[in-house]
Each structure stands twice: as structure tokens, then as C-alpha cells.
């Protein structure tokens, strides 16, 4: 246990929950809490403080992290693993900024708990890079000016990537439907459609599909 990489936010110096737990018994924690806080709060401490270790397979690498069961995949990717390319816009599955691929299919990472993602292949926008080179969908978004502020863009890119993995030659209607779960408040939709079409071409040129 001492050798494993600990990416949890509590792992920074100071009194961490984990360090605390390893130095005193669990019973002592409850006893202290009961003394200092009303019973209702103590229950919450137990429920929210419990952590589990999950192994996340992200962009081809396995990352072991200590998480609370309620933490979303979006939160863990961003704030724990530092993969901030995945964005958060609503945290309730409405805007699509947090879209990642789970086993190759676009999913809202704000609606997926990190513990649920264990054992699945997770791909984020960073995972589309080939070294420092842009992947074909990213390149197409660049060329077609398929964004304005760029905040919804990683989600749009992952939605298009997911589409093209199952449908390398989509029609315009299929493209529009595929990105309809990703809001672009800046309104760059028409360029996103063009980028999706161009991405399909670029992927074919590369021999991908």
C-alpha cells in the first residue's frame, strides 16, 4: 500500500483523512465526531468520509486513486488526475461539456461515478493527441474554426470521435444528432458540423475508422 500512487487531493502534506485513518482506529474517529458534532452530522461524516480505491484506465494508462464513492468521474479526471481538458458545465447531464468516451462510446462523465468507471476504457480529449500532435477530429475542429470560447469544445470533439468510431461516414443528420447533446452557447454549430465531416475525411486519409 505504501508504494501505490496516491492521487487523492488529501495526499498533499498536512493531516490527511487517509493519514488520519491509518494512525487511529475507525472507532476513535466516530467517538471524536460524536463528541464534537450532533448525531446527524456524525452520520454524514461516516457516509461522506469513506473512501475506496479505484483503478481507472484512462487514455491507455492505469491510475489508482482513492475516491469517495459519490465523486463523479468528471471530478476525479479533472481535480484528482489533473486531466482538465474535460470540462464541467452543469454537473447534471445537460450540457455535454464533460463528454468522454467510455468503452468507445460518448458518455457524460458528470453523470458517471468514478467507482462505476472502474474496469472500463476511458478516453478524454487529451487521449486523442498523438504526442503533441492533434488527432484528426481535433485537427478538423482547428481547421473549421469549430468553436468560439472553446469550453464546450472537448465535449463536442469527444461526441464526434464517438460517432466516427461507430460510423466513419456519417450523414449531416447523423452528425447533428450526434452532437445534439452538447450545447455550444457561442453558437458555432455550423462549423462543428463542417468539422465533423472533415474529421471523417481526415480519419479515412489516415486509414483509421
Amino acid at each position, binding site marked *: 500500500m505504501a508504494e501505490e500512487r496516491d492521487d487523492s487531493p488529501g495526499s498533499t502534506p498536512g493531516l490527511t483523512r487517509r493519514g488520519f485513518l491509518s494512525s487511529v482506529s475507525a472507532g476513535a474517529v466516530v467517538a471524536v465526531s460524536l463528541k464534537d458534532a450532533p448525531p446527524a*452530522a456524525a452520520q454524514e461524516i461516516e457516509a461522506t468520509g469513506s473512501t475506496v480505491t479505484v483503478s481507472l484506465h484512462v487514455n491507455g494508462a492505469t491510475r489508482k486513486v482513492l475516491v469517495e464513492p459519490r465523486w463523479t468521474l468528471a471530478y476525479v479526471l479533472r481535480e484528482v488526475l489533473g486531466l*482538465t481538458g474535460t470540462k464541467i458545465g452543469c454537473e447534471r447531464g445537460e*450540457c455535454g461539456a464533460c463528454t468522454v468516451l467510455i468503452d468507445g462510446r460518448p458518455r457524460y462523465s458528470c453523470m458517471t461515478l468514478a467507482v462505476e468507471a472502474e474496469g472500463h476504457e476511458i478516453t478524454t480529449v487529451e487521449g486523442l493527441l498523438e504526442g503533441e500532435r492533434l488527432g484528426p477530429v481535433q485537427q478538423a475542429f482547428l481547421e473549421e474554426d469549430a*468553436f468560439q470560447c472553446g469550453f464546450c469544445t472537448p465535449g463536442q470533439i469527444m461526441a464526434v470521435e464517438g460517432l466516427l468510431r461507430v460510423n466513419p461516414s456519417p450523414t449531416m443528420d447523423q452528425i447533428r444528432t450526434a452532437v445534439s447533446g452538447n*450545447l*455550444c452557447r457561442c453558437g458555432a454549430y455550423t462549423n462543428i458540423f463542417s468539422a465533423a465531416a472533415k474529421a471523417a475525411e481526415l480519419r479515412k486519409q489516415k486509414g483509421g475508422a
Partner: protein
Amino acid sequence: MTEFYDRLEENFRNSFEPPAPSEDTMDPWGETRIVGKGIPRVDAYERVSGKALFTYDVILPEMVYGAILRCPHAHAMVKRIDTSAAEKMPGVVAVITGSTPGADISWYGAQSKLFDPHCRHQGEEVAAVAAQTPYQAWDAAKAIKVEYEELPFVVDEDSALKPGAPEIHPGGNAAGKPRPQTRGDVEKGFVEADIVLEETFRTPVQMHTTIETHGSVVKWDGEKITVWDSSQGVYDAGLMSFARTMNMPYNNVRFLCPYVGGAFGSKLELGKYTIIAALLSRKASRPVKLMLTREETMLCVGNRPNAKMTVKAGVKKDGTLTALQLTCVFTPGAYSSMAFVGFLFQELYKCPNVMVLESGIYTNAGRSRAFRAPGFPTAAWSLEQMMDMLAEKLNMDPVEFRLKNFTEISPSRRVPYSSAGLKDCIIEGAKKFGWSETKATKTESGHIKRGVGMAAGLWMMGSGGPPYTAEVRMFADGGVTVKTGAMDLGTGTKTTAAMVAAEELGIPVENIRMINADTAITPYASSSGGSMTLASLAPAVRRGAWLVKRQIFGWAAEILGVTADDLEIRDKSIVSRSNPSKKKTLEEIFRTKGVLDVIAIGNREANPAGKAVMPFSAQFAEVEVNTKTGEVKVVRLVGANDSGRVVNLKSYENQVYGGMTQGLGYALTEKRVMDPQTGKMCNTNLHDYKVPTALDVPVRPEVVPVDLKDNECNNVGCKGLGEPGHVPTAAAIANAIYNAIGVRPTDGPVDNRMILELLSRKRRG
């Protein structure tokens, strides 16, 4: 918001002062090599790779997370706050309330406080916590016990002025004294008219819904603070507002925001969350990230105010407008703010007699803020529908009727426009759209009714102006860094600035590196709002580049024995055009002069004296209305804009697409819904608040740039674009709906239910 507009008005006044006499004025560009092309953005890589660091993405060592406890009631008085349980919650490092030292700060002018015990709408700030994780912060915020005295509330303007209505501020709910603004004599104008029409129009409260929510990350270093803020202005909205609020020297405050995930006016002022994060951070002695949730942004960081507009208009038989009168009532929410609905009536057409009267009424709802061309899409909704109503009565084509009332002289400023492109926008837009042909071949097929409509617009700012600065620095290898305090809200600011510098220096865009929006590094720029950025920044950048070039060419001329105007930069050398064998590398020249780089500050020059600088637009829409379901499908949109010279064609088109998309939402689906039973907002999320999706917009909207070669507005010849491209959309769609179904959609948004109601009204007669 008031402050921002005061500043803009000041700029506008400045624009009439004659430019400082200068012997070294720059000639306007003729043909350009780079400017005008459509190129990918210089920061596209960062934005598509996931590497761009938005405020939300900043992670610092030892950083903790903030959360704000907000009042759940529409109107309440905080009687008691008990934070003792929250302070003992796991991970909690700081809890603050209004009684925390340093937290007694006035807000909204002096109408409220950072944590005001008098909560005037749902969502007002009551207390805040910082904890190791955002989850723990939310837990702790919920564990704060607050005793509220609930007060009677009012959330609709009609009830707010009735006797006995709950008072939101002492003295009643009238937000200031309405001041009529008049030109000529409207009563005389109505007498002179052959036709007088009157109609009342309503527009909804529209929410900004930036995809990156508002928030800040703050880090104290003793008395100094660094703030990453999702903002529209690191100087005015950031550093200066923060320093004043916290009573700190400017020098001790650093604001940065290289990437912002959407703003649309809602990030033009310092947020309470920034101050709260700073207070939490100071108390915890840890950096704090405080990003608002979607729900919080729906309640507390602004909206476009609604409006009830009664419009009376008079016209002669030949189509000459004789009088326009607007009475507008809106709610700024619980605190003072502006509507700006009247200006379009005063400015868009040549009309000798105009009277506008705007009055605001306080309600227990979130305060409005600037929202993309504040007041103008609202005004266009009523004015441009009224223009179509008049055209119909006159039996005139709407295009012809508008052209009839076109003017090259600013009616409210009484000076000529530097370029008056409205006429060309209408003509070129109509041509692109196929206006006459489409109208003539209108086909009906069963329950799907087709219709076409158009509307015109302009934007009162968009001239840009001083003070605005850019630093241009050339290295000995020919590479150039341009630094500016300007924001790039997604508008492509950095790319346009790089293109301007590359054009002036005669070097490729790839050789330019842009650094922006960091008060510790980049020189002053006013906030990015009012479509002021491009027309302020581009001339400053050109000036800076020109000064750098002049310095280096001066040296080279002396060394090479040629004249400076015979020189150009070629790769890493300065070369004589007439005799290319005469050349020196930049490094050799720099070494001779004992420098390693050349730096110049470009200052934005004054705007032309005696001219009004405004951008114009005209838009055309084609809709299909399903008379069975009430669904409106916008199948085509054409936007023609006079924003002067096009700098980057790609981002130009993209801006107009965006403006039209938001206008489409304003016309058809977007509306804040307040529950009169509880005084709370019903649709505080993106499921119930409906912004246009990929399936709601036309696949290929079209953009027509109109460029009248304005050599007077500034040294680049460009005007603002972001807002004028949004102004006419909703009105054009409304006119198209009328054309389709023969009933006028006076009240927006025209959703399915509204269409069915209009159709049933028509059937009943």
C-alpha cells in the same frame, strides 16, 4: 453594469475630441496580404487539445474549494446564523459570514452588501465555506444553520407597483425616476402621419448561460493576491474593481484570464464569488477555487431584463416615418440596472420625432446585467415588427420601406456616420437571401406554413476607443510577441491582433506570439464588452507594430545607406526592395545598436472628430411553422453586417453565426420562468431553460460582410461585430412567423404553445 456603460459613454464623448496632433500618422491600408483572409485561430491548438487553462481548470498546490450558502427564499431576513456544526465538518478549513472581519462590504452601489441579511431574491449570498473537496464544501454549507424571517415577495412587475406590494427597497419598487428622451415633437409627428399604428410587445428574461460558469481561483502571498477569474476584463472588471473593493493598492493585485468559457456580458463586473474566495483564502491561508454551479449562475449573475414595450408609430403614405414612440417597462430584478431599449428607436431610422420612456420596476428576482447588445435585440423585437406592420399597411415591401427611411447622418448624434452601411446590408443581404424571389414563390403545403422575414439593426458602440494599449516586441530572430490586456472571449481577439501585427510588419502570422489578459504582464485594455475589443485593440496593435518597424527600419536605413520606405522584413533580415543585395540580419542591426529586442507600446488613437462610428446589420429568416404542433423551424438565416474591414473572415462569420443562434433562442425558446406561488425561479438548469441545440439551428446560415472601406473610424478600418450580428435575429424570425401564419407574435418567446395560442386567436377572429 452601470459603471461599464458610464465608461463607454465617456469613451464615446472622447471620440468627438480631435485627435492629438501627430506628425507620424499612419496611412490607411490599401490591399492587404493577411488581413481579410480566413485563418484558423492562433490559439486553436490550445482550445482543441484540452490544454487551454480556463479559470475552472486552475489547480494549485494546497488548493481548497469554496462553496456559497444561498438564501432559499424569494424574500427573507436572516435572523441568526450558526456555523458551529459546519466548522467541525470534515475537510473544512474556513467558514465566513457577514460578521467575519473584512466581510462587511457594500454591493450593488450601496443597495446591498456582500452578505446582506436582507435577502431580496432567491440565491442571495448568506455564508460561505472552504474545504478540501467541493463535496465537503457543499456538505458544510448545508450544515450552516440559518434562521430566516420570510417576507412577502413579488416577482412580476405588474403586481410590484400595486398599492400594498411588498417593498424591495425603502420607498417602493419604482427603480429610479423614468426620464423621457425626446427628439422633435411626437404629437406633431402623429398629426402629420397618414397612418398611425400602436401595438404592445413583450420579451422574456433571457439568461446568459455561459458554458463555463462564473468563478475564481485566488492565491494570497502575504499582502499580494493573484486571481484567476472567468471574466470579461482583467483590468476594469478585475484588478481595479477588486482593489477598490478590498481597499488594496493596484500593484498588489494581479488578475489573469487567458481563456474564458463564454461571457456575453455576464462577466463584465466583479463577482461576489471573487471577494468571497479571497476572504476564504485569507482565512484558510490556502488557495481557493470557487466556481459557481449552473443553478447559482441562473439566480445570481445576471440576465437580459424582460420588457413590455408599447410602440406607437406614424408614417406618411410615401413611407416616410413621422413619429416613433416607445414606452418600455422592465424589471432589473432586485437591484438597479439598465435596459437601454430606447436607443435603437432613436437611431435606426431617419425620423424627426421620437420619444422614448423606460421605467424599471424592482422585483424579487436576480439582477439583470449587460447581455449581448443590451436593449437592442429587445428594441428590435418591437421596432422591427412595427416596421413590418407599417409596411403592410402601406403596401410596401419591408426592404423598400426600410431603405426609404435610411440615413447617413446619425439621428441622435446629429453627425455623419464614418461609414453608413445599413443600406448596403439590407440590399446585399436581400440579394444573398433571394428576398424578392423567395417572397414571390412562397408555397404552402398542408399544415407546414413557410414564411420569410427580415429586420435591421445597429449597435451604439462598436467604435472602440482609447485608452487601449498593446505592446509589440520584436526579437533578433524576427519573432514578435504582442501583449495586450484584452480578453479573447472566443471572439478571436488574439488571432485578429496577430494578423494585424503580421500585416503591418510584413511577416507571417506564425511568427507572432500572443500574450493576453494578465495584469502583471500585459498593458491596459478596457473590458471586452460593447463590441469594443477589435476596434480598440487592432489599431493599437497596428500602431505598436508600426513603431517597432519604424525604429528598426530607421536603423537599417542608416546602416545600409537606403531610405526607410525602401525596406522590408524578409525572414530574419531587413532587405532593400530596390536592391535586395543590400541587407542586414536583424541580429546584426540589433547588435550595432546594443539591443536584443525592440519594444513599442501602441496606443489607441482618438476616434474621428465630428463622426459617429457604428456598426450595422440586416438579417433575413425563413421559417416553417407546423400549425398542428406549433413547432417553428428556422430553415435559413442570412446575416449581412457592416463592421468595416474584415480582419479574420473565419471568426467574422463565426461571430455572426453565434449572434444569430442566440437570437434564435431569444425568439423561440429562451425564457426565465418565475413561480408566483413561491417567488422562485423554476428553470434554473439547462434542461428546463432551453438554449438552441445542434438540431434547432439552420445547417448553413450565411454571412455577408459589407465593407465600405471606412478609412476614418480608425487606422485599421474595422468596427465591432459581436453584438450587431445578434440585434435583428429575433425580430427577423418574428416577421417570418407572421408571414407564415398571418398572426403577429408580439410576445416572445414564440414557443409551440404560443404558436398554437396565436392560431386559435386567429380562428376565433
